[in-house]
């Protein structure tokens, strides 16, 4: 197959060639960036919360008198615990994907000079880590005497669990067990490391901080009240959750159920990623529409060229070119145009990504997306040109003999 005559022909149709190449270039750049954005949203949605999501639910109450907090806790734990199928009820300040309950900057020294980032704090009553299903990777779970009354926010001196990610961030390479950190006057000593425990309000941009959490053992009281972790078998959970919400009016008529936040963790997670799902869906829609429009553009233009060159095709056929030759001519032509477009498109894709990274904190485009986008567009071009090219190959040689 000679490329020279094709290039010569394209040179005569410079404008149309440039247009279609530019369309391919734009499509290539949008395709690569949209795919990368979809991937980053999807990977954000698959974050491991570190807890047994299928078995857990969260009940939040508002509007109760803090002076009655201990009484309320006792009533709710006993009342919800009586629901058939309920495995356990714990007082916890929040759950992954639940309302943000406490984030505080920590320091690695008492003087507050060496900053260690801003992790989120979970506070729960005895048995909470086990109920959450946290997976311990080092140290031990809090013992009964580690659970202390909360003076203000957390106990003033607590023995805590932290996540593996936070441990590696705070003390890279060192054994975190027994290490200490502070936030203001509060002192924490690490007694155990858990595999994962996602923060409450995860934000997809701060992925590295998504597992920066501390679990503080505490005893229920005025500072830890009104928010409960319930656990049931996965198949019972929906029913237990519904019954628990209904039971609150009877158990705690003095409080108001926070309908917005009282859900199973699965539902909280689903809701939390709703906008990401919508955005990913939108991007998929854009990609489909984009590829469709590009393909139609190629079909339209190729059909035009085929119609315009009917006579030349007939002459080539009369001079001995086979149908396959004609087919290959149009396919090669399309391949060349798409390749021009792709070369520009790849540069454009990286450029757009740099701009997006600057203004929208979009992650860097993984370079291996580029070859995938390139191959996808080559295939699209070949598919789109197939119908007009087949039509061209069916032009009979006799056309050459008709009026000139």
């Amino acid at each position, binding site marked *: 197959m000679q490329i020279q005559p094709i290039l010569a022909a394209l040179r005569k149709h410079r*404008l*149309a060639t440039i*247009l*279609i190449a*530019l*369309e391919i270039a*734009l*499509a290539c*750049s*949008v395709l690569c960036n*949209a795919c990368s*954005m979809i991937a980053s949203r999807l990977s954000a949605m698959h974050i491991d919360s570190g807890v047994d999501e299928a078995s857990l639910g969260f009940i939040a109450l*508002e*509007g109760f008198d*803090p002076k009655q907090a201990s009484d309320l806790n006792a009533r709710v734990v006993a009342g919800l615990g009586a629901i058939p199928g309920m495995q356990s009820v714990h007082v916890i300040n929040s759950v992954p994907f639940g309302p943000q309950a406490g984030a505080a900057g920590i320091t690695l020294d008492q003087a*507050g000079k060496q900053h260690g980032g801003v992790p989120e704090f979970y506070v729960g009553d005895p048995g909470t880590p086990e109920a959450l299903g946290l997976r311990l990777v080092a140290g031990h779970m809090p013992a009964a005497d580690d659970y202390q009354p909360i003076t*203000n*926010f957390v106990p003033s001196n607590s023995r805590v669990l932290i996540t593996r990610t936070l441990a590696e961030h705070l003390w890279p390479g060192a054994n975190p067990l027994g290490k200490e950190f502070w936030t*203001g*006057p509060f002192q924490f000593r690490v007694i155990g490391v858990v595999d994962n425990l996602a923060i409450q309000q995860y*934000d997809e*941009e*701060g992925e590295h901080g998504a597992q920066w959490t501390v679990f503080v053992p505490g005893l229920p009281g005025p*500072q830890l009240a009104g928010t409960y972790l319930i656990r049931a078998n996965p198949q019972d959970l929906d029913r237990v959750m519904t019954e628990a919400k209904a039971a609150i*009016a009877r158990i705690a008529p003095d409080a*108001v159920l*926070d309908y917005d936040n009282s859900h199973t963790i699965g539902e909280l997670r689903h*809701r939390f990623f*709703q*906008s990401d799902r*919508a*955005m990913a869906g*939108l*991007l998929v829609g*854009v990609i489909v*529409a*984009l590829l469709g*429009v*590009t393909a*139609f*553009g190629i*079909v*339209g*233009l190729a*059909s*035009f*060229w085929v*119609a*315009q060159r009917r006579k030349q095709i007939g002459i080539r056929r009369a001079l001995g070119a086979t149908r396959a030759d004609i087919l290959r001519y149009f396919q090669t032509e399309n391949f060349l145009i798409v390749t021009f477009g792709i070369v520009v498109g790849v540069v454009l894709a990286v450029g757009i990504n740099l701009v*997006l990274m600057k203004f*929208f*904190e*979009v992650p860097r485009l993984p370079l291996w997306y580029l070859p995938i986008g390139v191959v996808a567009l080559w295939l699209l071009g070949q598919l789109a040109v197939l119908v007009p090219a087949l039509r061209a190959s069916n032009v009979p040689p006799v056309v050459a003999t008709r009026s000139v």
Partner: protein
Amino acid sequence: MFGYYLDLAIHSLKRNRLLTVLMVLAIAIGIGASMTTLTVMHLLSGDPLPGRSAHLFYAQVDGDPTPDYKHTEPPDALDYQSAVDLWNARRADRQALLVDSQIKAYAPVAGRPPLMLMMLSTTSDFFPMFEVPFEYGSAWTSQDDANRARVAVISSDLNDKLFGGKDSVGKTLRLKDSVVRIVGVLKPWRPSPQFYDVRGGRFSQGDTASFYTKPEDVFTPFFTGLEINDGNFYQFNCWMPPPNPGHLVNSPCNWLGLWVELGSAAKVVSYREFLNSYAQQQKALGRIRYTEARLRDLMQWLDFNQVVPKNVKLQTWLAFAFLAICLFNTVGLLLAKFLRRGGEIGVRRALGASSRAVFAQCLTEAGLIGFIGGVGGWLLTLLGLWLVRHQQTPYSDLVQMDVSMFLTTFALAIVVSLLAGALPAFRASRIAPALQLKTL
């Protein structure tokens, strides 16, 4: 002449239906996508108080004396002392102190469960400053502010819910442990964004949809609210843990907003000087350490907080990139269509049509495609907006097409198609008549 061109255009469009449908579809999809996002942008980035916003300012001083971070920008909220000092100075035409909190309210009818409401505690200037519309009654007076009167204004939603939409002025409402008398009921009021509560946008990483929630349901005088809901206030930030969480009066926390109305440029200058001198004076007294102060007008404050959610901006860019692709596509197809009619154009030229006439004829055809595409685009936009309305975002209920966006849809469609048609039409108008006639 235009009528004739239109006839020719319709005739030509009918002749090659597939190509016509492809072009109309491309334009309709491109317009639909870009107008959907543009309408959402238009709703979210608009001026919530046109004509007044330039006179409304958000005051900031830095009450945090800790050297933990660079104090290049004062915090987004004021501490109690600074806020009340600035408000008491009354150096502006009007001034509104404000803070919102969640409060438990009891329905006036026995047997219904209590409910949690958002309450805005503010001063009486709030209502005239922000042109809040009243259905019944009126705002409280500055005397009520001073007396910490147990009065309240309620939203039209809450009035519908509790009093069936009837005039409830004079009725009472139990908020937590206090009883307040209703003095006013608002008309439906839905500023976009809920600008007076906007803060912290720069820390939200573009996730700012919450700035578009509905206004609070209960409004009480500022000091009344602090008393009746004591223990339930949330800080913007604290530089030391507050001794009594939820009670923030005189605590080491920033939690209050102060809006001022300044009617002229001279007043703005003098208020800015006042803010700076206040900061200097407090520094001299040793209460604060950093004297950065800011006075941004409403739109500057919204810009500073980057109120338009990042997702929406990204979608807008995406939609316009998509429109550009549709545009290129249409250029290619029009080029094919016009040049294919070389013979016909050659005859017209030979019969005396000027190249300008051919150009006008081709553009008419492009414009007609744009118009039809615009109708399709408008329908697709309505579909797109319907989809946005069914997403669970705080601004879903705001999303609808107004007249200006309706007109923009068609204007954009026709401009885009004329742009797309210009180059092919120019090429067509330069067809040499003789050459074409020979091949007929």
